[in-house]
């Protein structure tokens, strides 16, 4: 239940200069590591690589000891062990789906459904709504009909739904109110308490310091 990055290198296509070069990072089981760095330093790219949403040019990512080399295909069962909390909840939600379907999708995809339906999972979804303090009535709405804070709660529940071994959060509390921020940080800490390795990028120094065991500066991760 750990996350390990070895010798990660990445450059944007068609641009000079690398964003990430020979980068190492290890998040042990039950630990919460925060990444900070100025705008444009590659935090989001690093997190997408760690979550296996994007392949690096070089290096390997290990999820609970299972190694994935740069460019290698990733199995669905490995993906299900990684939870992702996105930076912008709006962009990360299909505007045509009801929030119930959005929330149920990890379960539905695991059960090989082609299209997520909340009906089968109602009891589980309602339990999760309670955990993220969300009115279950909102599950019958679409993303356009709820606020950013409510949407981020849905996406947090979705990330935690399959009890992930690794949790990757890109600015999970940006643009949210104090109450939602507190809730999200608490649930992330709980997941770490269950043995998950949690990686967070944030500008919010205060929330980073309040829950992270360790905060690293992106520039300092390069091999010397």
């Amino acid at each position, binding site marked *: 239940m750990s996350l390990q990055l070895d010798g990660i290198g990445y450059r944007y296509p068609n641009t000079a200069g690398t964003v990430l070069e020979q980068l190492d990072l290890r998040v042990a089981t039950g630990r919460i590591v925060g990444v900070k760095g100025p*705008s*444009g330093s590659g935090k989001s790219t690093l997190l997408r690589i760690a979550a296996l949403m994007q392949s690096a040019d070089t290096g390997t990512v290990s999820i609970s000891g299972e190694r994935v080399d740069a460019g290698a295909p990733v199995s669905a069962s490995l993906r299900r062990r990684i939870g992702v909390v996105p930076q912008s909840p709006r962009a990360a939600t299909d505007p045509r789906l009801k929030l119930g379907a959005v929330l149920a999708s990890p379960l539905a995809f695991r059960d090989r459904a082609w299209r997520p339906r909340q009906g089968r999972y109602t009891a589980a979804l309602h339990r999760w709504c309670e955990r993220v303090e969300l009115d279950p009535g909102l599950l019958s709405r679409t993303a356009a009909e709820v606020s950013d804070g*409510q949407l981020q709660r849905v996406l947090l529940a979705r990330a935690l739904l399959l009890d992930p071994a690794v949790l990757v959060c890109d600015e999970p509390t940006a643009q949210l109110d104090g109450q939602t921020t507190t809730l999200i940080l608490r649930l992330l800490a709980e997941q770490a308490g269950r043995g998950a390795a949690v990686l967070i990028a944030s500008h919010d120094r205060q929330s980073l310091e309040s829950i992270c065991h360790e905060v690293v500066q992106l520039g300092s991760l390069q091999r010397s």
Partner: protein
Amino acid sequence: MSRYRVLPLLVLAGALLFALVVPLGDPAAVHAVDLEAVYLAPGAGHPFGTDQLGRDVWVRSAQALRLSLLLALFSSVASTVIGVGVGVAAASAGGVLDRVAMRLIDTVNAVPHLLLGVVVLALWPGNWWAIVASIALTHWTQVARIVRARLVEVREAEYVALSRACGASPAAIWFTHLVPAVAPQAAIALVLQLPHAIWHESALSFLGVGLPPQSASLGLLLEDARGGILSGAWWLLVFPAALLVLVSWAAAALAHPVGFRPAGPRRAARHMRRAQAAAARPAAGPGGAYLATDGLTVCDPARPDRPPLVQEVDYLAHRGAVNMILGPSGAGKSTLLRALSGLLSPQLQADGRILVDGRALGPRDLAVERGRRLVFVPGSAATALNPVRSVGAALGRERRRHGLDASIPALATSLAELDLAPRLLNHYPHELSGGQAQRVVLALGLVAGCDILVLDEPTSALDPDSAGILQGVLRRLADTGCTVIMVTHDQQLAQRLGDRVALLVNGRLTAQGSVAELLGPRRMPSATEQSVEAL
């Protein structure tokens, strides 16, 4: 259903009934020649008159409409199927196949449709399926283009990446995200092709390359009318032509995208009443107020069961001040901000007044003000920028539009004011970080200089250094007389930067006043915590 669709639906239903029922009564009448009743004017027995062979135009029109509709339906379905197939293949294969498909579309579009249709029919004359093929083979290109563009766009969406990241199979991605995004587009394309196909079939038959002359289709009937019209038999032209026009119009009207809602007389009257009532009250707020709302309510007419998003808000933003709007998530902060900027989604309905400098502005006035005196900076800045225009191109265009110097040094200077490096001029929006994009959007908004700057959570996605720079810029703007209105959830920021603050809870304004009154003296963390409790 919208009432704007009832009439075309009735017309289409009537036409279908006519086409299906009338020939059933006397199937033989379609081709029954009666040389003693040639060119009879409409009257008893022959409601639409008779043609040059004494055949009944009423029955023949119905039969013709039936045939034309059937051929048009087959043609539209066939062309939609081909179009969707090519679009899906091009989008999913990519690379060479994609480029070949796109060039094929260009080529087909370059050939005159009627010419291609005539060639196909010359090879297989008089066959109904040749007509279907000739229409389908020339009209699939538009569907293919729409489907491909939509697929490529949705496939790259963040929500698809997230679904893939939680283990969705390719089939699940298709049926969860891609098909629902493409299907409505394909359906609209299909319905829009229907009238076009009717027209196309008629044109081919009229030209004499369509169906055999003895059969009845709208095009053949019109061709027959050519001879009759010279001898005064106007009914031969008028009735089939009217059917063609009515059915084409009804099908096109039904395909018209929804969401278009002109202000009906009832809404106009309500606005008038409200305006009169408002005029009776004193217009301007207390001294110094620049932007104000008066009983502003925003609700979703499609969801009458839900409480309004913003309810009876009387808000005041002061000139030359940083006006903060604070509130928990879901309180309606962003909705209020969008209403102030005249950017509400068209599905929502706003009532009440918005006053700028004591003058009430309607949504249309706000749209005019926006971009001139009122600048709106959205929260998700990256999506607000045109993805195909570099930062330099966007900024240069904006400066030229206002008659300002658009040289590279001038552009670099305006970026430097927001602490952005000159090299970013060559970057495209997807190459910017969240913080950089936010500042580029602000730089674009500030080109013309503005009176009212409206920002939705501008600093939340920024690192502390960039946030500090942005706050400095906002402070400077306010000190030079600009009205800055910003939504935030960050109490400390409100206390540090704000002059005035308004608290919004459940769509209602619960308090507003100076920061010192509501949040206590500046830079006092303990007071912040208390007001968090108060929220």
